[in-house]
């Protein structure tokens, strides 16, 4: 293989190994057990950085994200549960800090909208299929029908005379 053809698989592998990209943003925190570290990673991975909205709190390099990681870290050290920490942040920054928004009336459309659209689409599809199945391919007006008969009859007649 040429070096060039190796490039794509290497890039893909680097992308797939992306979990370690977060490592440097977590450098300053130390944990007693690997389980604690994993819990911290899980939690900050579920929270959104408000500055770079497509990044999680775990991955973002923004200054605010670092402040919030410190806050989350301090709360975990103090023995707070994941729910308590999440509530702390939601109380201050709103549901927006959660990547997975809670199910409540203002988010019903978000959660159930796609299923409603699929349902509506399925109804239309079924109706169309059923109509196509039961109807003849094409319907002609009585006028067209008589014209066709006339033309066919004329063609038949001319064939007869040609013989």
């Amino acid at each position, binding site marked *: 293989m040429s070096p060039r053809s190796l490039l794509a698989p290497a890039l893909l592998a680097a992308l797939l190994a992306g979990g370690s990209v977060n490592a440097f943003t977590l450098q300053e925190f130390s944990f007693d057990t690997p389980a604690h570290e994993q819990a911290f990673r899980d939690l900050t991975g579920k929270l959104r950085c*408000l*500055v770079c*909205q497509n990044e999680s709190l775990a991955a973002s390099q923004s*200054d*605010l994200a670092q*402040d*919030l990681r410190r*806050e989350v870290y301090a709360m975990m050290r103090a023995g707070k549960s994941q729910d308590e920490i999440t509530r702390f942040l*939601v*109380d*201050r*920054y*709103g*549901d*927006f800090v959660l990547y997975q928004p809670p199910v409540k009336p203002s988010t019903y459309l978000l959660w159930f909208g796609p299923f409603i659209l699929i349902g509506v689409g399925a109804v239309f599809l079924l109706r169309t299929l059923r109509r196509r199945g039961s109807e003849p391919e094409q319907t002609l007006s009585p006028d067209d029908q008589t014209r066709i008969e006339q033309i066919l009859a004329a063609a038949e007649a001319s064939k007869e005379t040609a013989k």
Partner: protein
Amino acid sequence: MAASTTRYLVPLGAFLALAALLFYGLGLDPSKVPSPLVDKPLPAFQLESLKDPGKLISSDALKGKVSLVNVWASWCPSCRQEHAKLVRVARESGVKVVGFNWKDERSAALEMLHRFGDPYAMVFYDHTNKVGIDLGVYGAPETFIVDPNGIIRHKRIGPINDKVWQDEMLPVIKKYTPKG
């Protein structure tokens, strides 16, 4: 005839509705996140004063009058942009303007007030973002309108200009200013 007309009108209508929805979405700014703190009491806090190092000032000082709590920093270009407007507001409107200096260096912050004017009756100095997190601050500038009872009534995200002041801020301030 009527049936085939609706056959074309329904998809057209659906398309127009979707286009209108998406066009509306274009006008929304995803960086503006509504604050859950609106209509809730301002969290009580104490911070060092920016202008009097070592002196603690408390959020209780905001009570009794409608006040603007303006989150700013000397490193923030949009804060500079709105600064002149805040100076004018403080001078002309009689609204109490309070500064919340966020994640900034004291010397740089004081330098900015010295150069561009000081609209603030007092300035909280939150160098470490200790209180900023409690206020749900995620950028600068942000401006809270706090009513005389210490309830947050509005949060403006982004700079204040003449139009924002007239259309967005002033109606809220008028609504919560005690009559008489």
